[in-house]
C-alpha cells in the first residue's frame, strides 16, 4: 500500500465516522422533536379547555349564588360545603341575610397551572337589598359589591371541578356612601 492509498483509506474511515455521528444525531433530534410536538399538542389541548373553564367559572358563581353549588365541588370546597351542611361551619353565625342577589360577571381569566389543574379569577358585581331596606318608610338599603373570586380547578375523570374558592371584596357602595357623607360634612363646615 503506497502513501496515497493510505491517505484515501484514512479519509474514508474518517468520513464514514462523521456520517455515522451526524445520522445518529439527526435521529436523536427527530425523537426529541417528536416528544416536543407531543407536549405542545397536549398543552394546546389543555389550553383549549380555558374558554370552557371560563364559562364554567361563570356557571359555578351563578349556581353558588342560587345555593346549588354542590355538583361543581370537590376536595376542600366539598369538605367546606359538607361541614356547613352538618352545621359545623367554623364561620357560621347569625348575621344579616341578603335575600335575593343578582350576579353580573364582568371578567373572567383562567390559566392552566398543570395538565389537570387550573385557576380562574372572576370579577363580578353582586347586588342585593339589605335587611334594612323598607321602601314603605323611605329607607333604601341597596348594596352593590364588586368581588373577585379565585377558583381552583381539578380535573376529575373528564370533568373539571372546583377544589377551592375564595372571594375578595374589592368595593362596596356602602363604603362609598359613608365616605361621601364625610365629604358632605367637610363641605358644609
Amino acid at each position, binding site marked *: 500500500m503506497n502513501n496515497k492509498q493510505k491517505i484515501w483509506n484514512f479519509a474514508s474511515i474518517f468520513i464514514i465516522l462523521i456520517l455515522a455521528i451526524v445520522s445518529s444525531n439527526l435521529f436523536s433530534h427527530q425523537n426529541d422533536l417528536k416528544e416536543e410536538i407531543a407536549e405542545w399538542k397536549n398543552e394546546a389541548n389543555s389550553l383549549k379547555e380555558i374558554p370552557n373553564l371560563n364559562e364554567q367559572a361563570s356557571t359555578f358563581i351563578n349556581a*353558588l*349564588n*342560587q*345555593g346549588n*353549588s354542590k355538583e361543581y365541588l370537590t376536595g376542600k*370546597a366539598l369538605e*367546606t*360545603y359538607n361541614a*356547613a*351542611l352538618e352545621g359545623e*361551619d367554623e*364561620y357560621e*353565625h*347569625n*348575621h344579616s*341575610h*341578603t335575600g335575593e*342577589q343578582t350576579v353580573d360577571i364582568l371578567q373572567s381569566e383562567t390559566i392552566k397551572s398543570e395538565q389537570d389543574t387550573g385557576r380562574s379569577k372572576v370579577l363580578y358585581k*353582586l347586588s*342585593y337589598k*339589605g*335587611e*334594612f331596606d323598607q321602601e314603605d318608610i323611605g329607607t333604601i*338599603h341597596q*348594596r352593590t*359589591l364588586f*368581588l373577585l*373570586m379565585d377558583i381552583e380547578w381539578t380535573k376529575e375523570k373528564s370533568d373539571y371541578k372546583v377544589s377551592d*374558592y*375564595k*372571594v*375578595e*371584596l374589592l368595593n*362596596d357602595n*356602602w*363604603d362609598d*356612601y*359613608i*365616605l361621601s*357623607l*364625610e365629604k358632605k*360634612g367637610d363641605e358644609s363646615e
Partner: protein
Amino acid sequence: MNKENAGFLLLFIKNPILGVVLAVVLAIALLIMSSVGMVLSVTQPSNSSSNNDGGYGFVTCQEGDKFDEEKFLSSFQDAGVFTDNGQLFLDAGRANNVDPVLLAAISFHETGKGKSPMVRLDNNPGGLYNSSAGEFFKFDSLAEGLDFMARNLNKNYISQGIVTIEQIGAKYAPIGVNDPSNSNANWVPVVSSFVADLGGLSMNCSAIGSGDFVYPIPNAVVTSPFSVRVHPLTGEVENHKGVDFACNVGLPIHASATGKVVRSEFNTGGYGNMVVLQHGDKYTLYGHMSERFVSVGDEVEQGKTVGACGSTGDSSGPHLHFEIQTSYFDVRVDPLPYLQGAKTKDE
C-alpha cells in the same frame, strides 16, 4: 497566665491598700446603680398611670348581671353621714370604673361606717392624706370626697391591675408598715365582711390586653365574627367587615390603641354613633354606640373611653361593632389576630 499579664495582680499584692480602695469604689458604684434601677422601677407605674389621662389603663371593670342594687342601697342605714347616700357611691364608682361595693366597703372601714370626724367634718371618706400639704384632704361635699377617692382607687390600684381585696389591702394598708397596733392586719377581713354585707362585689375587673391593639371592652365575647365570604350552602354574601362584641348599654368602650380621632358622628350609613381612630396607617372603628365621648382631632391614649355601648344605627340589639381598617373605609382585616397579639400594628 503569662508573667506579663499577671502584672496587675503583682501590683495589688505589692499595694494592698490600692486593691481595697478599688474594691470600695466598685461596691459604691454598684450600690448607686442598683438604687437608680429601684427608683426607676418604682416611678414607672405612676408615669403610665398619669399618661392615661385619668382613664382606665389596660384594666377595666364590668358590672355583672347579679348585682343586687336594692340590697346595696338598703345597706346604707345607720351608717353615719353615709345613711341614705348609697346612690353617691354608685355614681362615684360607676363614673370612675371602680366597683361601688368596694368603694363603700373601704369607706365603711376607714370611717367607722360613716362616723369618723374626718368624714363628718372634712368629707374625706377614704382617710386620704395629702403628703404635699402635710395634712388630710378636705372636701366641700361627700360626693366630691367620694369622687376623689374613687379616682384615686382607679388610678393607683385598679388601672395597675390591683383589683382584689387582698391585693388592694397589701398596698392600701400594708401589714407592719407604720402600724404599731397592727390594725392593718384587720383591713382585708373587715373590708371583705363589709363587701359581703353589701351583697358582694358587683364588678369583674380584667386586663383588656397589652399589645399594639387591645380589646375595646373587658371580658369581650364575640357574637359575630369577621366574615367576608360567600356562604357555601346559601350563596349569600356574608359581608361583615368587623367583629361584634356583646355588651350592655352604657358600658364604656375603650380605644384599642393610641391614636387620633378622625371621625366622631352619628353615621346615617348604619354605624349609628361611630368613632374612627387613626393609628398610623391603620384605623379602628367603634360602631352602634349609645354615646360618644371624643371629638375629631382629639389625641387618645390606648384604653381611654371613647364612647358607651349601645344599639344605634342598623343594629338589632346592644353590641359593639369593631373594625380594623388597613385603608380608610376600604380594606378591612379580621381584628381578632391583632387583639390576641398574634399580629402587630405593622402587619
